């Protein structure tokens, strides 16, 4: 089996895995990084959303061979120097999470959006496709606006 090297949350890692194994399972089952969640396996629920080279990606549909050489950031790598990312802090301040299962993906999606869009409108926030089965959408909207203001 081939070996692939990439950067994970700032650290170089290498794994031996089949070329077509989705990054989600490399992270969860081989590296023990369980922040990204399985919800569908086909990129439609977005519970696995993480960043690849700074862009949001559904890593259940990205193979390890595609991720080789890239910079991968999961929810575990979002806080910097012991400080929560403003989106994470806003999530705590607004008590967004209910069961929490989709929240790593929701936070990573929101953080990616705020990198390029400092003042997201309601229409921009409506574009977030991540499913939350607990229905925390209204507090997600509030928290994104709070994070945008804080940034």
């Amino acid at each position, binding site marked *: 089996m081939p070996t692939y090297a990439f950067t994970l949350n700032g650290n170089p890692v290498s794994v031996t895995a*089949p070329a077509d*194994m*989705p990054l*989600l*399972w490399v992270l*969860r*089952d*081989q590296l023990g990084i369980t922040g990204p*969640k*399985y*919800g*569908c*396996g*086909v990129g*439609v*629920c977005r*519970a696995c959303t993480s960043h690849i080279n700074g862009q949001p990606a559904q890593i259940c549909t990205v193979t390890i061979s595609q991720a080789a050489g890239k910079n991968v950031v999961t929810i575990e790598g979002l806080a910097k120097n012991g400080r929560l990312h403003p989106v994470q802090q806003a999530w705590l301040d607004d*008590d967004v999470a*209910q*069961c*929490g*299962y*989709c929240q790593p993906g929701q936070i990573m999606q929101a953080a990616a959006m705020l990198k390029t869009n400092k003042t997201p409108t*309601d229409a921009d*926030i*409506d*574009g*977030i*496709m*991540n*499913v*939350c*089965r*607990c*229905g*925390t*959408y*209204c*507090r*997600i*909207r509030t928290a994104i606006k709070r994070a945008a203001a804080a940034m």
Partner: protein
Amino acid sequence: MAISPFASRETFDQAMKAVPALAVSWGAGSVDGVSDADVKAKLTSAIAPFAVPPLLAQYVEGTFDFAFVNHAPMEVGSAVADVHSNSAEIWLATKSPTGAQSAVAGAVGLQPAQVTVHVVRGGGSFGRRIYSDPAVEAAQVSQAIGQPIRLMWTRNDDMRHGRMRPRSHHQLRATYSSSDVLSYEHRMASVAVDFTGSGAGQALIDAGYGSPTVGTGFFQLSEACPYNFGAVTETLSEVPYQLPTGTWRSVYSAQARTAEEIIVDELARVMGKDPVAFRLEFLKTDAERAVLNKVVSAGGWGRPMAARTAQGVGFHAEYRSLSACLVEIDCTASTPRVTKAVVAVDVGLPVNPKGLQAQAMGSVIDGISTILSAGNHLDNGAFREGSYQDFLYARQANAPLSCDVYVMPATRSSPGGAGELTVPAAAAAVANAYARATSTKPRSFPINF
């Protein structure tokens, strides 16, 4: 004992890719050839007749259908099992540890005391994790191969072979005079809910509510018309199918009370009254009127609305608690959007107001989803929807832009229930707002299905 075919590997990806390599010849399914229309026909024929003949009074009536709805928990069915000859250990996110213990013991030939269940954190399941089927499967596989097993269902398996809120059919009729509602009858027929997952079924039987069945006992306990509607009768007929059914957040109430609240709006219309004024007149207690008045004032009931947009209200009382919901809906586009929601809840003693508000907010999203878009088709013996791409649970673009939840002050020293309290009120408010915005009488849910 027959063991289902399984694939065992180190990673979930390898296990999924190994499944097609299994040589399996499948037998007949439990509902081969059955489709939604067949189930609806059977439910319709199982409905009990009305007691009051409509001949002597004016009346409104309606026939309603609600589709199957998967629990669709984000976290699929999962469990870890380690089964030995005289003991078993299970790691499971469960709402019923003793139910899981009994189910696993029965499946692998052990006594319940020989099974240790470690309860772990799990994703929200909305009634799904009362049932322990993934733990039973994991235990059977572990026993068969003599190794510990970490089991996860795929989303497709969870959606098509997981549990469903059963399809239901409702016939309602209310007779009225110039100023009074004289009688109200509700006949519900539902594919039977499986109550075997928890100890709740036995508890109902022990308490004397298990007659004639656990389902009908539960129905009589949980469904009560909150209005002064004269002679009221509500009955449930259960139609058994060999389908995986389950208690979905609020069990019968989201369907039964939505149908009822739609008829309430239609009664108000024919009696020439505003839907809110009508409810305030026919509700029984000041506390009930207070939660409705709260959403009416906070939500600006009656404000002018543009064409194909409207407000709607719903009310529900259960679990020693009260909930009222007001929504505004925009039906100008092909996909209706609930743009605003206001909820008031009276749970007797609020303990964690922020968590209580969160439960109501989530219930609003359940109401929006199940009334407008989320359901499962049964086609020729199999469920059609396989994931969130075709099972249309609300996403951010379907959620209200604002959702304000008002918690009424404490009135006693013990709290009522709150987790599923607002699902029926919200579902009803969405249906009534849709009816008013589109000048239609919605009868089949979800509306866009």
